[in-house]
């Protein structure tokens, strides 16, 4: 594990940049613990102050310090992404491994459902969910809904690996030694798909954070929990751009863009590491 990390840092510029960006974001999120103001409170500082030494990133029209507000917002946004990614990984793993290993009609049925979830436009469905749930739409509920909708693409990737594992000799050995299907999947096949699971986690987090930001900006989530999208929502409500309070919008956007680019670079560099051909090319062998 550590050796892989060392290799990635040494040979992969994308990984270094991604790690750097994500570290900044994580440090910001961790700072929310020492915030002098509770994140939900308004009018704790003078409103509409531009960035200064007292308030590094300025203050909002709701009397919040942008810096401390941002720490709480990015923490909640990251937690949301991790929650969705973790839940949808479980679904993707079960469906992908089962479909790839079983084959036959189980595979066909599962992949048919899978392709449906890839094709269907999820955003209108999420809006429909918000429309019927209204104020009962809490953050954990939204995370669960998104996890139930956002596993399909990764399940397909996992299935393609599982398909090739099925024909390997050790699978036959396990079957002959009397292991049950779920034991083979969990003990024998799971370790082989874990690298893909790691890299898809980053992309899935990007996807879910992106949708959460969008829903929040439109006011379709629990807007009283500070998130990055929630900050932009309130800034829009107070027409911050027209009023010239640019720091209220610019800093959340900057931080969330760092999150997206950082996570994406980590995913890309991990993918490249998984593929031995491109790994060798980078280390100076091959073409």
């Amino acid at each position, binding site marked *: 594990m550590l050796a892989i990390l060392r290799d990635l840092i040494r040979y992969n510029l994308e990984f270094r940049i991604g790690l750097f960006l994500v570290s900044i974001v994580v440090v910001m999120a961790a700072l929310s613990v020492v915030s002098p103001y509770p994140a939900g409170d308004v009018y704790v500082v003078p409103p509409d102050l531009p960035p200064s030494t007292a308030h590094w990133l300025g203050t909002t029209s709701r009397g919040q310090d942008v810096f401390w507000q941002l720490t709480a917002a990015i923490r909640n946004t990251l937690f949301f992404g991790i929650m969705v990614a973790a839940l949808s990984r479980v679904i993707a793993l079960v469906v992908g491994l089962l479909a790839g290993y079983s084959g036959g009609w189980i595979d066909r049925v599962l992949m048919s459902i899978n*392709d449906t979830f890839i094709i269907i436009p999820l955003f209108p469905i999420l809006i429909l969910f918000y429309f019927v749930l209204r104020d009962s739409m809490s953050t954990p509920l939204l995370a669960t809904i998104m996890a139930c909708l956002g596993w399909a693409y990764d399940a397909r990737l996992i299935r393609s690996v599982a398909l090739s594992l099925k024909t390997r000799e050790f699978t036959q050995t396990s079957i002959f030694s009397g292991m049950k299907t779920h034991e083979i999947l969990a003990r024998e096949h799971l370790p082989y798909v874990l690298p893909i699971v790691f890299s898809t986690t980053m992309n899935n987090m990007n996807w879910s954070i992106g949708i959460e*930001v*969008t829903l929040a900006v439109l006011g379709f989530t629990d807007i009283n929990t500070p998130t990055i999208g929630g900050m932009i929502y309130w800034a829009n409500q107070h027409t911050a751009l027209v009023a010239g309070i640019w720091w209220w919008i610019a800093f959340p956007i900057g931080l969330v863009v760092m999150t997206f680019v950082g996570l994406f670079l980590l995913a890309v560099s991990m993918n490249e590491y998984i593929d031995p051909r491109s790994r060798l090319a980078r280390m100076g062998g091959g073409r």
Partner: protein
Amino acid sequence: MNAYLAYFAKRLVQFVVVVFIGVNLAFVITHASPIDPVEQSIAAVTSFGSTAPEAIAAMRSSLQELYGLKGTVAEQYVTFWSRVLRGDFGPSLSAFPTPVSSLIGRALPWTAGLLIVSTLITWVLGNLLGGLAGYYQRNRTLKLMGVVAMGVHPIPYYIVALMLLIIFGFLWPVLPITGGSAMNLQQGWNWPFVSSVARHSILPALSLILIGLGSWFLGMRSLVSNIVTEDYVVYAETAGLDSRRVLGSYVMRNALAPQVTGLAMSLGGIFNGAVITEKVFGYPGVGTLLVDAVYAGDYGLVLGVTTVSIIAVSVGVLVIDLLYPLIDPRVELR
């Protein structure tokens, strides 16, 4: 020929499955919710003053009929499907008495136009540049493009649209930032209207293109850089074929097939992006219609737009799937 028929039949079945699951999803979501849309609409009306109990009862019964919420769940399910199949979602409450279907019919051409044009530009440009970048790996400009693509691609649609809005709305106001065309023009095939539509669509299209470009570029580049090491490419190069011909007919042609499949698979995501982008730029398509319907609490319209979006995207995927054999004739062997 039989293999083609089998292929088309398989795609058609998948299309039916997608529409079936999608429409059922819409039914389950709206009917399993703890909140009754009928009571909500009544509450919205009665909050303005006192209403006679008989009037409320009459309203309840007609709203239930309007929303297809009369009878048992099984009856409602049948009503729902017959409405979907007839394309009749009742009148819109926020634009009463205009039918939901005509509101959607008015918005759909805008979205379809924006989506088709920007997706085609994105796909062709992204694949062309990505293919070049994978083939000419030492070219500085193409390398730089790869870096830019990696930086822009992961940003969600909303954020890019908002950034374009800030740049062209506040910092350098040269382009119209809201609406689908200038208000004072006769709609139709005349030059002032068409040019106004084109000008208004630049920013929404640009934000869709900027984001989409990266994924095709990066995907094509890695496909091509794997193909160039294949024996048949090395052979063609050694035989002294023109490098443009090697790239065009030997490398890109083979890399194109997975990218067409990729287009079919990402159509739903592109549609999501269009919905959001439309709202940011106030573009009069189904995205704006959907979000405004939620704000207005218009049950029939929200349900109608969601259902139509699911069907429209599935049709788009089906069309791409049916065109696929033109790109990759090996379908017979699959």
